[in-house]
């Protein structure tokens, strides 16, 4: 499903031209099989988010090759990349939720982009996923009226509503309490068991403990350990 070969990325220097760019990722090799669950663990600033963004095509690597679902992400046109993304789900760390939109609009958007007709089917699927993330009755609420934890659940619902073949989650429990982490962990496990390839980047020990899958530890931009969790 995902094949990363010798991925390197340097952050552009902020201090000025005299300071060399800071390495974010250095020579990363990672292979994720179809239907596999991979947990990318590591401290903050290790490069987990950058790695997910590279897989998603939001950030281009300085070196190396990224192949997702048999397609070299770097060589895809904007519309081909969009088509690939419509088959995947991504929960970004910043959630990317426009504040003026309603919960229903946000969660229904991937279904509409996939061409699902505006009918009971669409509404039914949106309400079903909202129930799964414990947001029943939140359809008409605007994002700006939600608490951080609720927003996190909306982002998760949006990433799962269209049954993606690959789910990338960047710190999906960042704003959640322990009880909610339990629910999200079991939700992600369910998604994985249902056949979706799942890649989760987290530093949340509670989530790592509750999820089953292969763990890869990233530190200072390198995979220092890769094995079963």
């Amino acid at each position, binding site marked *: 499903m995902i094949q990363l070969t010798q991925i390197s990325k340097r952050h552009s220097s902020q201090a000025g031209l005299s300071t060399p760019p800071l390495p974010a990722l250095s020579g990363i090799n990672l292979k994720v099989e179809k239907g596999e669950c991979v947990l990318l663990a590591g401290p903050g600033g290790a490069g987990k988010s950058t790695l997910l963004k590279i897989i998603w095509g939001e950030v281009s690597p300085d070196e190396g090759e990224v192949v997702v679902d048999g397609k070299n992400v770097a060589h895809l046109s904007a519309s081909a990349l*969009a088509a690939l993304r419509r088959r995947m789900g991504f929960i970004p760390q910043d959630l990317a939720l426009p504040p003026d939109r309603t919960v229903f609009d946000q969660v229904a*958007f991937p279904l*509409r982009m996939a061409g699902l007709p505006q009918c009971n089917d669409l509404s039914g699927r949106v309400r079903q996923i909202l129930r799964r993330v414990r947001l029943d009755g939140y359809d008409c609420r605007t994002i700006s009226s939600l608490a951080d934890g609720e927003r996190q659940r909306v982002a998760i619902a949006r990433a799962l509503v269209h049954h993606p073949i690959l789910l990338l989650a960047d710190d999906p429990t960042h704003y959640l309490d322990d009880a909610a982490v339990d629910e999200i962990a079991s939700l992600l496990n369910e998604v994985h068991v249902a056949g979706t390839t799942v890649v989760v980047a987290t530093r949340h020990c509670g989530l790592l403990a509750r999820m089953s899958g292969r763990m890869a530890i990233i530190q200072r931009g390198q995979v220092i350990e890769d094995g079963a969790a």
Partner: protein
Amino acid sequence: MKLRYLLAAAADDLWIYKKSGGVVVLCNGLVLFLVGLFLLAGYNTDRRFDRLRQQGRLTIYLRDSAGPAAIVHLKRRLEQDRQVAAFTYISKEDALQLFRHGGGEASLLAELDGNPFPAAFEVEAVDRSALTELTRRYARFAAVEEVQDPSPWQEGWDGMFGQLSMVGMTVGSLVAAIAAAVIVAAARLHFRLRQAEVRMMRLVGAPPLWIRSLFGLEGAALGMTGGGLALAAVLGLFALLRERIEAHLAAGPFGDQPLEVLPVEMMVGVVLAGGFVGGLGGFFSVGWRRS
């Protein structure tokens, strides 16, 4: 389905972002109002110039010796002449009255014996090209002293009108370019404020053309609304000031030709132009970037 959703999403967005959209509409309305005023002024000026250009008038001055029979004969010829649209007979007495009403100096007349003004026919030709022929034709009559053909000075007017038209078109192009730049800038700014939404759309795989089309549609709607608003303001102002301006112009060289409102095609053009330029601004406010 995506097209239907595109239209519905554009309508939703216009409602959700009504505050910044309202500012864009006002901005568009203001510049299109100025464009509308310019068009209205240009249209009416052009009509007046056109009337002057097309006007074919000549004056047939009669000899003092011309008797009533000769005058009647000439009148009949003018009535039968297909190149004559209308004519008015001005007797010597009428001419004197006109001079007096026109503010002519009484002392000047006192020095002269009798009435020095000749009787005349003021003739309006069916069109300007007939003037030379009419001049030649009526100059041959024994009762006619002189036929005054205005063609030479009208040619001078033509040159001036041509130059004025050029200046008008240059200023018009400049006004249109400035208006277009302001509308595009307003639309781009409006959509730049929605970068978080663009990111979300890209994140879930919205095709770049879809995002651009959505913003293009919204920009077009905002531009057309601004155009409609501008038009309403122009028409309102026109209705309010029309009589005053006409009264003011009546004293000028253009006479009492009434002012006219913009033709429907021009009004529709202002609204559509606002929509087109706003649509372009919206469409190009988002790049083709992958992320």
